[in-house]
């Protein structure tokens, strides 16, 4: 085990800002993209049933 306490874990040996800044944005991107693709899939399915008006 590398960490003596939760505080030590979040501190990351003084590099907390950098480590968590990198991980947080990566996680955010990887949550937003699936949500975005899911929405596109649902929209595509809806458009098959009722095509958009401009066509």
């Amino acid at each position: 085990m590398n960490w003596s306490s939760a505080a030590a874990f979040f501190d990351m040996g003084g590099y907390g800002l950098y480590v968590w800044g990198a991980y947080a944005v990566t996680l955010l991107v990887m949550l937003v993209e699936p949500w975005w693709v899911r929405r596109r899939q649902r929209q595509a399915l809806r458009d098959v049933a009722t095509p958009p008006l401009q066509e």
Partner: protein
Amino acid sequence: MSLRWFTFSAPSRFVRLCARLNPWLWALAVVLALVALYIGFFVAPTDATQGDAYRIIFIHVPAAWMSMVVYLAMAFWAAVGWSMNTRMASMLAQGLAPTGALMAFIALWTGAFWGRPAWGAWWVWDARLTSELILLFLYLGYMALKSSIDDEVRGDKASALLAIIGAINVPIIYFSVRWWNTLHQGATISLTAAPKMAHTMLLAMLLMTFAFWAYAFAMAFARASAIALERERHTLWARQWAAGEAITAEGEQ
């Protein structure tokens, strides 16, 4: 023996295959990522020279690798779509692009958050960093070009040309740390030499690479399926598929 190379070039079969594969790819991505994070943060030791800042490597390197692999896959499928007139190949190339762009973005972002403590700078115009930034712009250029041309087939061809020419940048990124004197460190692992890192660190990094790989596949497949439905909304298979999905959705409620 006749190999059925073109079985999944029919959008209807491709979409069905993706729907079947994606839950497994998702499960694989999540499980591998959790194991990689556990090993990366709780088993792998603190680095002697870089302290705990080095732990960014567990996402930085997988994202950088995937940004290059996804680009080559995108260029390959764009070329297949162009030369063999298989529209699903072009749609798959189109489905890969945003995921590749996000991988390039993650590589650059995590690199900045690592460069600041390691080099004292968020960004330097180093050969490795600059060529990776160009990769991000190539993805964005590909997407912009594809979406700017209304005719789908013409758009496929024009963007395929851009993707193929841009592929020259991938070996430049990979060998940049050898060809030029870069601030960026050399390759941590290569096929010809023993890894320059502890086994647990390497394991966490490789597991995360497989997690990112599964994630990228799931995303590209899902997006390509959506694109296939958008482009072929008037076809019989698309209507049947949408009807089948509606029945499944009702069954879940």
